[in-house]
């Protein structure tokens, strides 16, 4: 499932996939895959992304009705 919330938060933070990838220590492809729904990140990576984008886990990774 695509993670549009994360993509939106990243754009709001004025960050490219490359910037976010560098900030959390992964490759740009991994960020792209998370946003496209092609990879399920570990909790550690979710937390790192949330901290970088100044969001909570609920903001980015919780889906109602799933």
């Amino acid at each position, binding site marked *: 499932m695509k993670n549009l919330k994360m993509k939106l938060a990243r754009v709001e933070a004025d960050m490219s996939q490359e910037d976010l990838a560098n900030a959390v*220590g*992964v*490759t740009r*492809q*991994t960020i792209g895959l998370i946003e496209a729904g092609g*990879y399920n*990140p*570990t909790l*550690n*990576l979710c937390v790192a992304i949330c901290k970088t984008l100044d969001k909570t886990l609920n903001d980015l990774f919780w889906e109602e009705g799933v």
Partner: protein
Amino acid sequence: MSVIEMFRLKNRDERLLAETNRINAIGFYILSAGILLDLYYGMSQMQVAFMHDMEVEVSLYVRPLEYLALMGAMITCLIISIKRGVMTNNRFANTEHFPWEYYLVWSGLGALGVGLGTALFRALAEYRVLGAGQVHWLGNGALGLVCALMVFFLCIGAYYLSFKIAKRQADKQVVSTDSE
């Protein structure tokens, strides 16, 4: 960034790590199976030659280093798995009692593979070393059956022992935070 610093970097992409682990596992299985088949065939040829007081080509000998490397890899994986309390990664990973049916099936499959492999490799070795008319299918079948039975009971024993030790290790890893 210096070369030393480059190798000291701790941040590794978890997805790439998981992918490379999966890819390496495929290579490990193919390599192990290949070496195992090669060794088994070599042993069969040496046995056939020995039984008939014949010399066997040096290229067909079982190579001790190859054997030690395979055994070393398998035993290392087994010891690390058991020490970390990991026996399997499916729904039987956290059972209280030894799942007999599950391991009976695996032991049966292992025994079947070894039985068929023994009979076929022995026949192939006889064909190669002695010639087409010297293949003893009945005898090879009997040998395969005996090997299959031995492997079956060995597997069940090894699975049971490994499960018990792994379970003990896994129980040690349980960290209760209820009282905090």
